[in-house]
């Protein structure tokens, strides 16, 4: 079978081509860049909402894009179990569209943070983490101004194992120093109850080739390999 993945482009997206490059040239899966008003779910097995900005991030990051017709299409995929991955601004869009619980607030430092950090895998039972092991520590970059995860229902998130990644030090310890934005419980990424929708602030598409990583790691590739394997097994 031929797998087809879409990367939805909103006005202001700037990590869209990175995601396309990794999927097409590193993973080897047919991936299309689709303008948000033209996105039709029926043509695709999975979708990625990329990082960058959308609609100037006016009012709140992701809120205007959350009302785009692309999200109505993606809601159909959400319901029938196809994988939806939101990276950075994509994560913000998914929370504003209520695909995922909680919200992403301005970093506690009030600064845009752009650096390589570590995250620890909390749940490898998702379509995006099945190639990882729980407790694995990944090298991955972040670049955001509004990444402070907040929820008014942390208990439920923990009980349902919806926390997929937490910021940690390189030994996998959750320290305040390792938390780059003040996120509640060091949360870096979460999924929905059904596990087919995940959002995270770090950028796997920038961590999928050794030449781009300060430690020559390719941990970001695991996200896309996992997603592709999930789609193959599903069909």
């Amino acid at each position, binding site marked *: 079978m031929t797998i087809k993945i879409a990367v939805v482009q909103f006005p202001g997206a700037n990590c869209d081509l990175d995601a396309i490059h990794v999927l097409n040239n590193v993973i080897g899966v047919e991936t299309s860049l689709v303008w948000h008003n033209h996105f039709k779910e029926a043509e695709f097995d999975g979708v990625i909402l990329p990082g960058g900005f959308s609609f100037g991030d006016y*009012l*709140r990051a992701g809120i205007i894009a959350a009302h785009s017709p692309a999200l109505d299409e993606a809601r159909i995929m959400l319901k029938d179990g196809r994988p939806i991955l939101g990276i950075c601004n994509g994560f913000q869009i998914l929370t*504003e569209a209520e695909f995922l619980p*909680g*919200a992403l607030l301005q970093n506690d*430092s009030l600064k845009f943070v752009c650096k390589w950090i570590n995250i620890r895998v909390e749940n490898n039972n998702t379509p995006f983490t099945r190639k990882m092991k729980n407790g694995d520590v990944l090298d991955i970059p972040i670049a955001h101004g509004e990444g402070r995860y*907040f929820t*008014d229902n942390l208990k439920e998130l923990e009980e349902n194992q919806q926390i997929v990644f937490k910021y940690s030090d390189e030994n996998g310890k959750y320290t305040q120093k390792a938390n780059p934005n*003040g996120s509640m419980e060091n949360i870096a990424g979460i999924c929905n109850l059904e596990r087919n929708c995940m959002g995270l602030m770090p950028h796997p598409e920038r961590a999928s080739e050794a030449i781009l990583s300060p430690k020559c790691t390719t941990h970001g590739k695991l996200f896309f390999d996992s997603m592709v394997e999930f789609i193959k097994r599903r069909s």
Partner: protein
Amino acid sequence: MDQSEFEIEISLENKPAARDPVAETIKRDLLAKKGYDIISRVRSGQYLRIILKANNEEDAKETVTKMCNALRIFNPVTQNLNIINVKKL
């Protein structure tokens, strides 16, 4: 009945449980450092002024509240919506 124009001012403020680093910085790094120790609390937020046609003040408030809820003009997870002023133009 002829509709009139109303101006509604609303503020969107983070809920008490959501930290507000903008306000914390204003208080800690500006007000406290300049000797304004009488200030006990600061909260920041967003402000919108909306002008609309409505039958009366109550109608105008209801329309704006419904609109803000339906379109998530405020984020109900983290923010409270306050109508701070309504006036007939």
